[in-house]
């Protein structure tokens, strides 16, 4: 890549990034640290820590994050290890199904979860108990639900780390007399630590800042829900900004610490594995035991969503104190699809997600080109910047965008011009902000998959094209893009899936019913008295089927390389 082109791209990308990512964060910092007269002040910050309700919220959020991360490790590490070590019946199917919960947002599952684990729900009916699982432990409910949605991220990271280990590393330990748990503790675990930590960090930040699940589970004493509730006062009350800032700092610190401790993604193995991989065919009790474990986890992980499916088919009141609904009906589907809000929300989500994926592709590929194929000195910084959205909670970004929109809407020029108003004022039309928000949040996945694609594609292939007289653009179009197409498609599909069911930005930025995306509609329907829960479920099922198809497609296209996208 020519140096000048690279520089121009670098400047444009950095500029774009500053406006769409740094500016919103700057807004939060500004609102949290400056009073109405523009003087620097710490009083809001101190105020947050003096308010026992906020402090309790923060403590609860940390507790959720810790609990979720531990649960996720307990599920993800053994699964990854088993998949790495053994061949067993149905392995590839299980590996694909295992990933499905990742894109079904836990907050949709929460609707089914309450049906399953409520005092009069399926589980109690099955076991003949009347334990109030959720009421007595909303905390438990929240972390279980989140863990069931987030374990695939850790699973993918650990699986990739395990696959990266030269089998000779472990054979050498065995050969010196070290086996079993000692071998795992002294050799395997340290070697996968970077992957484990990378995955764990994302899970922790995600759980720490997740809004949807506690909202539906009505676990209100945690920071994200408090911030969401404070939305009504935005513009007047600076405390939510301070609260969001605390979240931001905690997340970024955690991310930075992870990066510092494990500066590199993984230990570079000294050489390519010289011995064939050590996958063995599961025999004896393992032959059925391992598939059973996978099946059990898949079943439990999909249980909440199964609950959603059943809810969507059950006539109101027919699923009460029974294992499954006593009757089935398609009524909710026809009603849901007949509902104004529903139909437009599907269209809205498709539009927002498509536009944001397009933006993502454009930016992601450009970043990858500068990072991999140019010698611009500051390209590393661009790479790091593009990964930063992983460290910044969605709710923080949403808050930042909201405050920019509020600011823009108050500009005289915007106030008077209808077109500008529909562009910049989310109360009129949130399209621009939602598209940008979706795109920025999912940019890291796109960049990672594009970078991976370029790194796997030898630069000599491009040089050969140039050597035969092709121009730079022709080479990109005819040689490079076709070669990295699989990566791009997979990355785009993931970005699309995530955007379709994005929660924080959707709930906060979409404020007019005719611009609601699916997630906000599900939330609003859920709030409705009467059949709301059933309509929400019907819409949720529609979205889940759509997304499950998408992610299965992506994992088929990308195969084993799936993990590469989620590694930070």
């Amino acid at each position, binding site marked *: 890549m020519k140096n000048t082109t690279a520089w121009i791209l670098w400047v444009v990308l950095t500029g774009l990034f500053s406006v769409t990512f740094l500016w919103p964060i700057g807004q939060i910092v500004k609102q949290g640290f400056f009073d109405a007269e523009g003087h620097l002040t710490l009083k809001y910050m101190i105020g947050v820590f003096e308010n026992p309700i906020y402090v309790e919220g923060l403590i609860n959020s940390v507790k959720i994050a810790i609990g979720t991360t531990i649960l996720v490790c307990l599920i993800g590490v053994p699964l990854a290890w088993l998949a790495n070590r053994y061949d067993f019946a149905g392995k590839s199917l299980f590996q694909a199904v295992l990933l499905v919960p990742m894109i079904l947002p836990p907050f949709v599952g929460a609707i089914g979860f309450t049906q399953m684990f409520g005092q009069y729900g399926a589980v109690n009916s099955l076991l003949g108990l009347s334990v109030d699982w959720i009421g007595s432990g909303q905390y438990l409910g929240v972390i279980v639900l989140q863990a069931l949605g987030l374990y695939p991220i850790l699973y993918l990271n650990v699986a990739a780390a395990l696959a990266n280990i*030269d089998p*000779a*590393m472990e*054979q*050498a*330990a*065995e*050969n*010196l*007399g*070290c*086996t079993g748990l*000692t071998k795992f503790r*002294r*050799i395997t675990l*340290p*070697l996968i*630590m970077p992957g484990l930590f990378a995955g764990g960090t994302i899970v922790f930040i995600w759980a720490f800042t997740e809004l949807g699940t506690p909202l539906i589970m009505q676990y209100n004493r945690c920071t994200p829900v408090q911030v969401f509730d404070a939305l009504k006062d935005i513009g007047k009350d600076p405390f939510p900004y301070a609260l969001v800032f605390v979240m931001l700092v905690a997340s970024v610190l955690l991310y930075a610490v992870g990066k510092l401790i494990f500066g590199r993604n993984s*230990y*570079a*193995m*000294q*050489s*390519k*594995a*010289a*011995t064939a991989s050590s996958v063995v065919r599961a025999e004896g009790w393992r032959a059925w035991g391992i598939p059973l474990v996978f099946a059990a986890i898949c079943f439990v992980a999909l249980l909440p969503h199964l609950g959603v499916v059943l809810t969507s088919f059950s006539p109101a009141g027919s699923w009460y104190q029974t294992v499954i609904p006593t009757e089935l009906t398609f009524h909710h589907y026809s009603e849901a699809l007949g509902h104004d809000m529903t139909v437009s929300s599907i269209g809205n989500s498709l539009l927002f997600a498509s536009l944001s994926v397009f933006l993502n592709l454009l930016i992601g590929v450009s970043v990858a080109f500068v990072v991999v194929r140019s010698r611009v000195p500051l390209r590393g910084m661009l790479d790091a910047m593009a990964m930063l959205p992983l460290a910044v909670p969605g709710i923080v970004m949403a808050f930042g965008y909201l405050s920019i929109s509020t600011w823009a809407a108050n500009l005289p020029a915007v106030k008077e011009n209808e077109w500008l108003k529909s562009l910049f004022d989310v109360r009129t039309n949130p399209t621009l902000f939602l598209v940008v928000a979706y795109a920025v949040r999912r940019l890291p996945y796109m960049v990672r998959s594009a970078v991976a694609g370029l790194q796997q594609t030898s630069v000599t292939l491009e040089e050969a094209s140039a050597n035969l007289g092709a121009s730079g653009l022709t080479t990109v179009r005819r040689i490079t893009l076709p070669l990295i197409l699989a990566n791009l498609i997979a990355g785009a599909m993931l970005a699309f899936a995530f955007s379709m069911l994005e929660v924080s930005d959707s709930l906060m930025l979409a404020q007019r019913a005719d611009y609601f995306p699916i997630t906000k509609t599900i939330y609003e329907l859920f709030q409705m008295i009467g059949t709301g829960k059933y309509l929400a479920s019907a819409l949720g099922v529609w979205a889940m089927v759509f997304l499950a198809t998408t992610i299965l497609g992506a994992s088929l296209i990308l195969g084993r390389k799936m993990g590469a996208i989620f590694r930070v």
Partner: protein
Amino acid sequence: MGALTIHFHPMIPVRLEHVTKKFGSQIALDDVSLTIQAGEVFFLLGPSGCGKSTLLRLIAGLHQPTSGRIYFGDRDVTSIGTEHRNAVMCFQSYALWPHMDARQNIRFGLEIRKIDRTEADRRVEQVIQLVQLGPFAHKKPNEMSGGQQQRVALARALVVKPDCLLLDEPLSNLDAKLRLEMRTEIRRICRASGLTAIYVTHDQKEALSIADRMAVLNFGKIEQIGRPQELYLKPRNRFVAHFMGETNFIDGIVRGMKDSLIEVQTSVGNILAGYCPEPIQSGDRVVVSVRPETIRFGPAPSHSSLNAFAASVHDTIYLGEMAQHVVSLGTGPSLELKAFELNPKRVARDGAVEQTTIRIDPEDVVVLKN
């Protein structure tokens, strides 16, 4: 060297009886029987895919044989896991653990064996000295050069005083110069430790220069076992002759015996040969193997005209210490031979064909059944 000599008490022979290893339907090793003497440096040599690494991994206990038994001394270890065999392997990729520095890597086996601290310290320092790792002992594997990593891998294996040391192409990841250096090092270390060592390679020079004895494998079978000179000078068949070094094969038919030499009729005349690994009789179709370095130039001394042929030098590759000539014999459809000349004087200019005489000592000629 005295101070650096480490005495390893256990010196055990390794014995394989009718060992067969299949991977699915593919036969990697086919009924291999072999005894490796205590304290011997034994080489497994062969082209890639011949089963030599599989054989080594069977001895290490990293694979289980499909059939057959493996003995360390009198102990049947066939069903014993690698962790209880004390047959320690130096992996081709070194397999140094990247999260530990050199010393930690070396110490690991001692920790697993619960050797007490002071003894472990002493042995680690001793082995670090033996492999001359001194200044690098605190470095992580990725901060070390290939040669240093190789030394750490060797030290890690040696420090646990293995019953036998297994080396899997230990030099294949090093550049040519370092390979020569480490070859000498490994020979020194093996001799100094007096271990039973089994060494896998595809490089016959490595084997010739270090081995006490060696086995040449092909397609999962042992072609020949013996000392380096035996295999080089008295190959049992065409494969071994070819694999041990460059040679010229000339087709012919046995004509009979002449003064305890075998007379073989070829297209360029009769050749007398001193050795044949198996009984033959007149009329047998054979090949004659003549190594290029045994061909001499110039007219025969007057008293002997055995194996002297008129020849012309066609082409020469000049390599400094030696020249590789292509010479052709006879008139009709000519036979081309490779001939090496040390300290070369005759360097043919382009197109200039030099007429000369070549001689081959019958002792250097081997007759092999076709």
